[in-house]
């Protein structure tokens, strides 16, 4: 294996695993649900994206031609992560979970409409 490819692969694997860990650390450590939603939905998709790019590079240089089916997983994750985060935030607002900063209420909305 080429030494530059190996350095690139090691960097991508380390970055992806570190981002995955930071996402779960945010999920565990942050204090209310709306801030906890940030950790997995941003950092974990970036982490899995890095890992999948590393995997595509590894299988492209190791054997039979260009390996592209990792792109499928990446594309699927990048489409579905915002949708599930949106639905979870809607469910949390519906259940009126306590938040560190209160969400904008009725007066805020009517103030915007009146203006």
């Amino acid at each position: 294996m080429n030494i530059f490819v190996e350095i690139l692969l090691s960097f991508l694997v380390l970055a992806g695993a570190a981002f995955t860990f930071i996402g779960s650390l945010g999920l565990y450590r942050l204090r209310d649900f709306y801030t906890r939603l940030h950790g997995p939905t941003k950092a974990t998709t970036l982490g899995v994206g890095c890992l999948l790019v590393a995997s595509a590079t590894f299988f492209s240089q190791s054997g039979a031609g260009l390996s592209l089916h990792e792109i499928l997983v990446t594309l699927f994750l990048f489409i579905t992560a915002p949708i599930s985060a949106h639905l979870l935030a809607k469910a949390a607002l519906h259940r009126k979970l306590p938040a560190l900063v209160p969400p904008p209420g009725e007066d805020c909305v009517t103030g915007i409409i009146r203006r």
Partner: protein
Amino acid sequence: MLSFALTIGFALVGAAFALSFLRLLKGPDATDRILALDTLSINAIALLVLLGIHLASPLYFEVALLIALMGFVGTVALAKFLLRGDIIE
């Protein structure tokens, strides 16, 4: 060098698994538990991709794709159930 990076990667993703599982046990509300399950499925995808590089086998992408699909469908179904009290109306 790559095997060393893979070892560190396995350790980090395993720690991420442990933290998500602790949030799944602890979560004060049902939405926290759904979010922890979603994160667990994404961590499983990361672990499978690392295992595929480690064993140099392209067999694990189908499994990763299936876990991504099932995790998304499960998250959407559970969030919809919390939101509407029903999944298929």
